[in-house]
């Protein structure tokens, strides 16, 4: 069975062809660069770019996989969560395609896609040993940061254990980069600078790291960096800049890793997974690996291209329902919110318990 996946939820236009074992025959991702000068994603520009690139990206995926539309058994498209206008472009493209080619189409929750990305295999990479179910996953990206227990391949088999109350981890990276004048996106540049910095040099707030909760909060540390910049000005020399990056990144990574291990213990699972764009962070990968080893857990990290937004993970996440013969042709609507049940209330204030 071959699934065509489409992804347009944020600032990446993706199309991919994946078979029913998770083997990726083609995975085309066109990243939008139009947002750079605005210091963040402009929804209208994202939608415009998706429309411009959707068709070409789709054609390219079919050509790369060396298959024709007739070989495709079903279509999977991201329908939530994300920017509504951006999601609509992919959904309409998928809908038109499904209607014309008389193939089933299913809507996929983008977060489920990220959580299952670890099962993808790529012909040009050494075969990975996929995790055994159940596992606990940390999903950290520019839009989401949460811990999940994953018991199976469908929405109902994924349970949120705790999420951020405010900013996503990736969002904190972007905002700190903006405060330091490092441009957008912030993750890769901070990671690179942090490598040669002293993580203990700058006193910054610790992001909810002491509490025995699986919830996160990153707005405090973001403000802490902003205050430091207000008080000291933007770093005047390279080493200070590296130190600020290292101090910020260490605190964020420490919290993420600590809660991942805590969640695995609470859920009594043997495997942990990190997913989402922040999983591309070098320090997160290293420290998660060390912490997992120490705790007797197996850590599985998807390859880099499976961590960032892509359509292969969407195709794989749609597979289970397509295989069961389900079809959303008559009911495919977009939503800015995930369909996964959430346990964390956003915003400030006291929590019960």
């Amino acid at each position, binding site marked *: 069975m071959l699934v065509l996946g489409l992804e347009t939820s944020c600032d990446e236009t993706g199309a991919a062809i994946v078979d029913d074992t998770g083997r990726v025959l083609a995975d085309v991702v066109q990243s939008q660069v139009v947002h750079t000068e605005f210091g963040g994603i402009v929804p209208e520009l994202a939608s415009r770019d998706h429309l411009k690139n*959707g068709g070409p990206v789709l054609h390219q995926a079919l050509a790369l996989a060396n298959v024709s539309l007739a070989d495709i058994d079903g279509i999977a498209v991201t329908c939530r969560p994300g920017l509504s206008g951006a999601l609509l472009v992919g959904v309409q493209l998928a809908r038109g395609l499904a209607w014309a080619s008389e193939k089933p189409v299913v809507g996929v929750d983008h977060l489920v896609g990220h959580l299952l990305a670890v099962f993808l295999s790529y012909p040009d990479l050494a075969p990975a040993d996929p995790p055994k179910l159940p596992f606990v996953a940390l999903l950290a990206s520019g839009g989401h940061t949460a811990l999940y227990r994953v018991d199976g391949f469908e929405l109902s088999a994924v349970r949120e254990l705790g999420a951020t109350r405010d900013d996503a981890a990736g969002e904190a990276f972007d905002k700190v980069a903006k405060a330091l004048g490092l441009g957008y996106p912030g993750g890769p540049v901070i990671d690179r600078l942090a490598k040669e910095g002293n993580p203990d040099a700058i006193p910054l707030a610790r992001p909810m790291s002491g509490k025995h909760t699986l919830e996160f909060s990153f707005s405090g540390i973001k403000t802490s960096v902003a205050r430091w910049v207000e008080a000291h000005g933007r770093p005047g020399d390279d080493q200070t800049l590296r130190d600020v990056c290292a101090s910020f990144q260490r605190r964020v990574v420490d919290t993420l890793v600590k809660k991942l291990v805590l969640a695995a213990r609470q859920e009594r699972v043997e495997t942990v997974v990190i997913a989402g764009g922040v999983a591309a962070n070098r320090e997160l990968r290293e420290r998660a690996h060390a912490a997992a080893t120490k705790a007797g857990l197996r850590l599985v990290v998807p390859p880099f291209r499976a961590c960032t937004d892509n359509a292969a993970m969407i195709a794989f996440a749609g597979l289970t329902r397509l295989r069961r013969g389900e079809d959303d042709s008559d009911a495919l609507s977009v939503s800015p919110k995930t369909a996964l049940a959430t346990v964390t209330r956003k915003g400030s204030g006291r929590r019960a318990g």
Partner: protein
Amino acid sequence: MRLLCIETSSRRGSVVLAEGTRLVARATHSELNAHAERLRALLDQVLAEAGWSKHQLDRLGVGMGPGSFTGLRVGIAFAQGIALGLDRPWIGAGSLEAMAAACPAEVGWPRVALLDARRDEIFAQAFAGAGRPEGIAEALPRASGLASLAERYPGAVFLGEIGPALGAPSVFRSETSDLPDAAGIAVLVAGRDPADSVREPLYVRDSGATPQNLPPSPIVRRAG
């Protein structure tokens, strides 16, 4: 030549089947923000009415705006998906141009198509004899736009349901010229060389985003 045309730039969504420039079936809806939900049912409806199979279609036509940004994309992406699925060409045409093309022959020229653009503006475009565009589609202030158009195009016939409200001197009203409609798109697309297709939506207005006015850190330029 059998055409399927889609138009979703305004609050009315429309789908037509045409044999050349002859309209065969037309279906519309006016449910608010529901183009994405309603289009497919409209397609099935016109095909059933005409007794055609989707595989008999030769080309797709779609309205490229100006109009609602999201509405436009809903129709264009859908048409692109169908074109890909049927392996047929899709041809884009201007939505204001479609209003001018949907008028009966006895309506004189120049014709100026008007469409509510929200935010106290109107979209407008003028067409000379045989539908030749006089300049590009533009967004004009609602208060002063009509006066400037009347001055630029003396004796023009104004089209669009918004015409009377704006106090247009000479207004022609009809179902398919009151708002951009797939019927007008079909007239345009039937005779158009695919090479002359409008490929990018006619947004007319920019995204409204303002670039940041922050100089990049000099350190990073060296570090990067």
